[in-house]
């Protein structure tokens, strides 16, 4: 049986054919669901082995299939073996964003833009869902996604073990880097261990930990936030500023007398957070990402936001990226 689809643009089925067939299946599915619901005690027929009940519960939930596979035979097998894509409301992907994280997700001209946003829009398209964005604080996001107030978060969020206890993550889609920026006129090179130099950084940041371990001979000047630190750099009060990679992009744009002295790859990956109760969604998102790596979509989006080469660790994990890397 052909995999069920909700009406989407780009669908190849003619409307006239689709509607009556859909109605018939829907009626049957409701009847079966009622029977299944009465007889099962748990949350649903998630362990169903036959196509019909799994499709029935899918139909009742109003979600779309997890794969765009074309051939009916493959799709039915895929539909029966593939997990459902669990979203809160049919046809929509509810995305939580922070809207203030350059370049991952931020507001430009009143619209939600960014690297994560572009990826998310592409993923939603491949999942045949309409993304809708809600701006929240980081705390609200970290609480709301596991609680299924939102389907997914589109922020540059590090995958950390203590976070993984309460929420699911997509596979890593980005590995960050730290950058050290300094005035061009200062003549600081990447080779130096910054002995005797004064480096500004934000107290308690990831860069703080890194610098303490790797630059013991440098003088670390700790600031409470980034703005005073960058001004101190411009004013000559410090020799260099050690900050997250994406932020260096922002500062290099704002100040023409600065240069990136060194960039350090981190091993902390970024992933999209989702609820632990939505394994189908997780799997679907991962498949979408894999497809995007393969067909070059990811690389195109990446190059739109970053001048740095693709994160080496990511390329190692997905060798297919290396093909479109230049």
């Amino acid at each position, binding site marked *: 049986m052909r995999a069920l689809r909700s009406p989407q643009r780009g669908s190849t089925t003619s409307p006239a054919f689709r509607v009556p067939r859909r109605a018939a299946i829907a009626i049957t599915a409701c009847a079966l669901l009622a029977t299944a619901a009465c007889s099962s005690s748990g949350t649903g027929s998630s362990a169903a082995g036959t196509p019909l009940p799994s499709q029935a519960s899918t139909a009742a939930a109003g979600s779309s299939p997890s794969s765009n596979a074309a051939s009916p035979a493959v799709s039915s097998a895929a539909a029966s073996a593939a997990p459902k894509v669990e979203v809160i409301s049919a046809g929509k992907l509810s995305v939580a964003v922070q809207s203030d994280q350059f370049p991952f997700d931020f507001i430009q001209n009143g619209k939600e833009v960014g690297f994560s946003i572009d990826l998310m829009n592409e993923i939603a398209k491949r999942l045949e869902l309409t993304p809708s964005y809600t701006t929240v604080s980081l705390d609200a996001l970290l609480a709301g996604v596991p609680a299924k107030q939102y389907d997914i978060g589109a922020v540059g969020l590090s995958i950390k073990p203590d976070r993984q206890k309460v929420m699911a993550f997509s596979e890593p889609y980005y590995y960050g880097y730290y950058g050290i920026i300094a005035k061009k006129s200062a003549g600081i090179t990447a080779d130096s261990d910054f002995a005797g130099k*004064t480096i*500004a950084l934000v*107290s*308690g940041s990831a860069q703080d930990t890194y610098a303490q371990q790797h630059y013991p001979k440098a*003088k*670390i*000047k*700790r*600031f*409470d936030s980034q703005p*005073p*630190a960058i*001004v*101190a750099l*411009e*004013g*000559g*009060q*410090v020799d260099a500023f050690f900050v997250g990679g994406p932020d260096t992009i922002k500062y290099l744009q704002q100040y023409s007398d600065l240069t990136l002295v060194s960039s350090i790859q981190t091993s902390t990956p970024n992933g999209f957070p989702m609820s632990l109760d939505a394994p189908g969604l997780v799997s679907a998102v991962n498949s979408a990402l894999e497809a995007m790596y393969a067909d070059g979509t990811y690389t195109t989006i990446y190059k739109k936001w970053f001048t740095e080469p693709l994160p080496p660790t990511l390329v190692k994990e997905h060798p297919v990226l290396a093909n479109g890397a230049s």
Partner: protein
Amino acid sequence: MPTGLHNFFHTFFDLHQIANVMPDLLRDGLLNTLMISAAAIICGTTIGIVLATLLVSRRWYLRAPARVYVDIFRGLPIIVTVMMVGLGLPIAGLHFFGRNSYPYAVFALALVSGAYMSEIFRSGIQSVDRGQMEAARSLGLSYLGAMRLVIVPQGVRRVLPALTNQFVAMVKDSSLVYLLGLLASQRELFSIAKDTTFETGNLSALTAAGLVYLAITIPLTHAVNALDRRMREGGAVRLATTAGAPLQLLGAQEGR
């Protein structure tokens, strides 16, 4: 103990946490806080006295700029002033104090505190009896000389207790130096406490710092009061008057 109270004590009065952070506070933070506070108090008092003298001047071109200064530095949030001085001066190319955050912070705090204290000193100076100025001028002292030697010393002594607030404020505002960036050796009380709260997720370090601040400000208040008492006692005690005491004649020589 009710749950709410228990939570409160656990968050703010975890004795284990307080004991853990206290050595750092006392060893590193205390001295730094005292340094900044003392310097800011001294500089601020000086600025305050100078400003007060300008505020009481008869010449409008001395009074008006002083008034503007006081209005601005009393009205701006101290954070803004600290940033403008500590980051703004270097950006403008004026590296008065090199790269060290401390002198800039002290300067900014003194500018602000001087504005507040100038009003206190002004009222003190104006409360000095006119006769004092008249007597000083009658002896031939210049206006400035009379101010410096006779009026201001009296005016300052009178308002000493009222300055205590400013002194205490300086001690607490010394923590604002963190805005300008701190080297590891420069951590003062508040920044040590703040860093510890990030590490532990518990706020008891702030309580610990608070206790050390009290250990500075309470004795400071008592010291100011003691100083004030001592200066009052110097003049107030009246000995028994001797109305008919024999007088020596003017000029030891007789028959002139």
